[in-house]
């Protein structure tokens, strides 16, 4: 019975996330769009929890909602005037984009429903944080180091690009 409630919860979460996702692209005010994105990120973190990836959910909140969203909102505040942040978009452009997205969605949905995914073997223990750590350090240590260097490079690049010219 508890499972049923949990499943109901996940479906509600999915519907909420889908609504927030469409809101983030449709809301005229960019600030509200960014906040809708934050809502989507939190919902996806919830989904990670339901899929048993606790560490990932927490990393997602920390990295995305904590850092990336703050960055986005700083950018929104810096670029938008203090009063207006409304960016209107044309009607035809919206209709065309809508139709193409719908077609894309229908195609991939057909593919998705037709293939029968290997049934989840179920019962196999979910990778714990310790396994994740060991795997990260053993099999994926090379991408991990490259990622570190890449982040460092992006840090310096972003600084150089956004820095105010020393007049």
């Amino acid at each position, binding site marked *: 019975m508890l499972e049923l409630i949990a*499943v109901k919860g996940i479906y509600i979460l999915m519907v909420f996330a889908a609504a927030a996702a469409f809101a983030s692209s449709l809301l005229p005010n960019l600030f509200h769009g960014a906040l809708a994105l934050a809502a989507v990120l939190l919902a996806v973190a919830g989904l990670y929890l339901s899929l048993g990836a606790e560490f990932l959910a927490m990393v997602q909140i920390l990295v995305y909602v904590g850092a990336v969203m703050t960055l986005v909102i700083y950018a929104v505040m810096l670029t938008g005037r203090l009063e207006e942040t409304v960016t209107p978009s044309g009607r035809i452009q919206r209709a065309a984009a809508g139709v193409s997205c719908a077609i894309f969605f229908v195609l991939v949905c057909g593919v998705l429903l037709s293939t029968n995914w290997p049934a*989840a073997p179920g019962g196999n223990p979910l*990778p714990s944080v310790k396994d994740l750590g060991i795997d990260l350090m053993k099999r994926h240590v090379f991408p991990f180091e490259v990622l570190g260097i890449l*982040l460092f490079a992006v840090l310096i690049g972003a600084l150089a690009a*956004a820095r105010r010219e020393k007049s």
Partner: protein
Amino acid sequence: MTPVPESHYLIFSLILFSAGIFGALTRRNALGVLIALELMLNAVALNFVIFSRTAPEGSASGQVSAFFIIALAAAGAAAGLAIVLAVYRSRKSIQTDDTNLLKW
């Protein structure tokens, strides 16, 4: 772990992805496009985690790759926003129509 069938998860991540594409196409503001980009990357990371459940016993490669995607998305966002700010400083506006010249 939960009896929710995978296809439902996959449909949901597909909805996220198409919302991202829709956002990227309709937004006239560079920041809006960046927001939509985050959405798409998120949908992809979710797929990795969905399939990590059916992975052979104990291997966490699904979650690790999702972890990498999140890190890369953060790096992408940082670089993208720096560029948007630089563009804004010189062009005074980040409407996507204005920035149509590679060199100005």
